[in-house]
């Protein structure tokens, strides 16, 4: 009887093999249909451009909607909804094209921008990215409730002309026009949806190259070509399908291996597998920078400059990047301003090279001795290093723990916290050192530099340097690029000399992509990767 049961089960299994491919899941790339299938790491939390804060939401929005400007081929700023524009120190003027339309056929007008921007800065909206509007006149005052939203420095002169007044000179303003928070939103539609705006695909309007045609929460999304898009001739793909949502990198890699998705990122483990399978491996610097913040509050050992200098002199970012992080694409960080940031004409770091610090264990020990004397300690107390729960974070933390112990005899305790608890501890300063990172919002050194202004909420360690603050104000208020960049250069030096933070590395990644997929742009700021100009070849 048991043998019969066994035979029955195995025969069923064999039948399964004989069945034709009943699984009609899309293949990774389809030339005839010009369709691409990819996987998402997470579900976009909110497709409301006014409130979005995360990468995945901006990724989708960057394909379904468009701002005044856009990024074209080779990641250069190009015309979006605006056809023509003029910028000076005081403000900017944009002439919109007449054939830019929403997905319901109605035209995109200057009023849509005015409404969207006013809603962003409105304190009742409580948009977490409101700060990105601060270059516009009165934006900061409005968000703090001191002025009303209609005093915002943006005006629709007529349906197709938009005039912006600056709060202070802003050299990087044009780049902001391609940023998600500055996208237009149509007032009548927004008000009609009420609470449900952006809740589902029916509750959104699209003015970009694609429209969202399918959204099963937590499971799948699908983009299809938007026939109302003014530049639809430049869009080759008909469909971008995202039927898999999983945060497991290995699962995504397996999907790629099985020919189900067209691209995926690689980590140390899957990298070897990719080499073995002879996939073409590509590299990309995603623009973020990772560092360790020190706590400058009362009573903390890390507030002492000599102590920090000791740590700086034993730390070799090359070793961290090459051996511990060990994924290509990551570069040791020599400055707070990463390599890709624009300076006056060329890259900032080319025009203002950062000074290099070499490892010097003897000097480090000397600094440590001075610190001990200055603080009046016989022994250093154990230090708390706050880290998140990601796998690389704890590996790096263990490396640092050992490094400081071996070279300086310091006792470091690793405080692993899950996401929101780590944020809570960071904001109240419950740490000695914390591993942190920062992603850029626009292409100007200011997006990194102002992190350590004493008034910035993101300055978790409460670093307070009046000299540094003064330089920030200079860079903020000047219209002359040379003066600004000189100020940033001085700030760059202060960060290194004063060891305001311990610079670790500039993030990058490696990924694989189907050979039949061409024209995918990778960007540091904005929707990344971008399939707007992509196409499938045979």
């Amino acid at each position, binding site marked *: 009887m048991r043998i019969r049961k066994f035979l029955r089960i195995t025969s069923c299994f064999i039948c399964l093999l004989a069945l034709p491919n009943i699984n009609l899941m899309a293949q990774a790339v389809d030339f005839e249909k010009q369709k691409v299938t990819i996987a998402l790491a997470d579900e976009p939390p909110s497709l409301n451009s006014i409130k979005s804060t995360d990468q995945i939401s901006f990724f989708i929005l960057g394909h379904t909607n468009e701002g005044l400007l856009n990024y074209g081929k080779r990641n250069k700023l190009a015309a979006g909804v605006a056809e023509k524009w003029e910028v000076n120190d005081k403000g900017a003027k944009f002439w919109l094209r007449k054939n830019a339309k929403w997905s319901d056929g109605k035209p995109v007008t200057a009023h849509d921008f005015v409404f969207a921007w006013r809603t962003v800065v409105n304190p009742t909206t409580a948009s977490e990215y409101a700060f990105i509007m601060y270059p516009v006149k009165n934006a900061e005052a409005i968000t703090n409730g001191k002025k009303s939203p209609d005093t915002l420095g943006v005006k629709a002169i007529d349906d197709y002309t938009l005039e912006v007044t600056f709060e202070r000179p802003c050299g990087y303003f044009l780049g902001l026009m391609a940023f998600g928070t500055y996208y237009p939103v149509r007032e009548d539609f927004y008000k009609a949806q009420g609470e449900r705006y952006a809740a589902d695909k029916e509750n959104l309007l699209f003015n970009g190259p694609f429209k969202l045609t399918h959204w099963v929460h937590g499971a799948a999304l699908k983009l299809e070509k938007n026939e109302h898009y003014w530049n639809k001739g430049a869009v080759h793909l008909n469909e971008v399908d995202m039927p898999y949502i999983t945060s497991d990198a290995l699962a995504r890699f397996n999907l790629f291996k099985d020919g189900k998705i067209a691209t995926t990122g690689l980590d140390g*483990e899957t990298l070897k597998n990719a080499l*073995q399978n002879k996939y073409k*491996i590509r590299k990309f610097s995603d623009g973020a920078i990772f560092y360790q913040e020190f706590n400058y509050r009362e009573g903390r050992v890390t507030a002492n400059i000599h102590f920090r200098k000791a740590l700086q002199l034993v730390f070799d970012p090359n070793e961290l990047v*090459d*051996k511990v992080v060990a994924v290509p694409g990551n570069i040791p960080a020599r400055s707070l301003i990463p390599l890709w940031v624009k300076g006056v004409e060329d890259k900032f770091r080319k025009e203002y090279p950062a000074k290099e610090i070499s490892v010097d264990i003897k000097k480090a020990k000397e600094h440590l001795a001075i610190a001990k004397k200055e603080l009046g300690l016989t022994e250093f107390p154990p230090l708390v290093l706050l880290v998140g729960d990601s796998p690389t974070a*704890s590996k790096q933390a263990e490396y640092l723990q050992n490094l400081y112990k071996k070279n300086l005899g310091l006792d470091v*305790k690793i405080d692993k916290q*899950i996401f929101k608890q780590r944020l809570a501890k960071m904001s109240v300063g419950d740490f000695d050192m914390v591993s942190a990172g920062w992603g850029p919002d626009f292409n100007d050194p200011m997006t990194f530099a102002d992190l350590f202004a004493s008034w910035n909420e993101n300055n978790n360690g409460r670093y307070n340097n009046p000299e540094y603050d003064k330089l920030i104000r200079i860079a903020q208020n000047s219209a002359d690029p040379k003066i600004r960049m000189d100020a940033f250069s001085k700030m760059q030096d202060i960060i290194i000399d004063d060891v305001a933070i311990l610079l670790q590395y500039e993030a990058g990644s490696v990924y694989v992509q189907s*050979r039949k997929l061409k024209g995918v742009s990778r960007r540091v700021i904005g929707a990344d990767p971008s399939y707007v100009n992509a196409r499938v070849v045979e």
Partner: protein
Amino acid sequence: MKMTPTSNAQEVRADTFIPSANDFQPAHRESHHDALHRPSLSYWQDAWIRLKANSRAVVSLYLVAFLMVFTLFGPYIWQVNPSSQDLDQISQPPSFNKQAVLVNGSGFWEPDLEELPEHYFQELDVEDLLATSEIIIDQAFTKSVRLRWQAVEGAYAYVIYRNDYKPESSEDLGLPLAEVEGADLTYYQDRLNLESKTYYYSIVATDGVDESEAFRAIPVNVEQAITLDEAKERGLVDDTAIIGDSISLKSHPLGTDYLGRDMLARLISGARTSLFIGTVAPALYILLGVIYGSLAGYLGARVDNWMMRFADFVVALPFLLFMILFRIAFGVESGESGIFPMLIAMIVLGWPGMARLVRGQILQIRNEAYVQAARLLGANSSYLIIRHMIPNVMGVILVSITFAIPSAIFTEAFLSFIGMGVSPPTASWGSMCNEGIKTMLSHPHELFFPALLISITVLAFNLLGDGLRDALDSRLRARD
């Protein structure tokens, strides 16, 4: 009438026969009767004999002994620091007497290059860019690989690729290590996670935007190296050693982990944590569960109801949240090892499952004949529970113990992962498994060894449990 014994049989009549002392003679003792009896044994003596006879249980006792020796005496036999990292030997498989070359510390490298004639700096289209004519290996150690190559006319920059396998075409050159800008910057130092094996490096010229189709690849044999300073620090050499000497590195019988730490040392130090948690926590929460469940099952009706509702309540609470709460409640300092709170947490959230099982069994047997009989004979509740019921639910208890042990070990790993439990650099088998999974395919030994030890532990207690159950099961007692 009086009868006298006579040798010849006289007729004896039953109704008139009255026996007297003379009618009887002492009989002989016959020893062969003893063969049908065995010496009377108590319950426990009987159990012990049967346990010893069970070969699998004996094996398990040896395994448990092995684990105890491993844990208690391991650090003295294998005296290696479990926390010392060796970033040159990351994730290495087991090795004995590995050789390494003594080298200088390798920092910045900028070789002297000869001036390039003007025509090299012209800008050519990518189709016109050729492959470099020669690549020279300056140095090939695990510390760094230094390459120099011949400049390519018209190149704006070069991209250096590295592959673990031989590249067939310009499409599978491997990992793009870096791009060096400048027609004259024809050198590169690679330090990315080098292992002592053969890599294939390729150099491709670019025009600043696209890469040329032409490339040159060379195989590079990377040798294991160690700096003189490090070697002295670890006591591998004395002062007579010079650069270029070949020395033996310390053996790693079970390989190294993701930060170059010796696996065997980590497993030994992790044994304490894992075995402690893996035996004490289950033992306690099973005990608690058994007591709770048998009370609930025995007392029945309303009491049972309330007790089980409370058990349901405990099970439904979100585990992660309450773990964090315990951590705070017990005042575990940031970064400290919180073994005691973790133990409490596991017990508090583990007992309901056991209680439920035991209660079910008790409900089933409380109406058995022998229970009723014992009650009629005047046994009180605790006697009934301890002496009759619990031995009969031993089967279920022992099965649960088998599963509780690995469950506790992995729960501890999870808790350490979220910051509650042991904190680095203290190791535990469960957290080593967690880390090992990340490199499961490329370096399986990091997962294999901790998992093996966990398996041995489970096997040992499993067999022991089986043997105990067979030995203690009173029903099997008669079978001998």
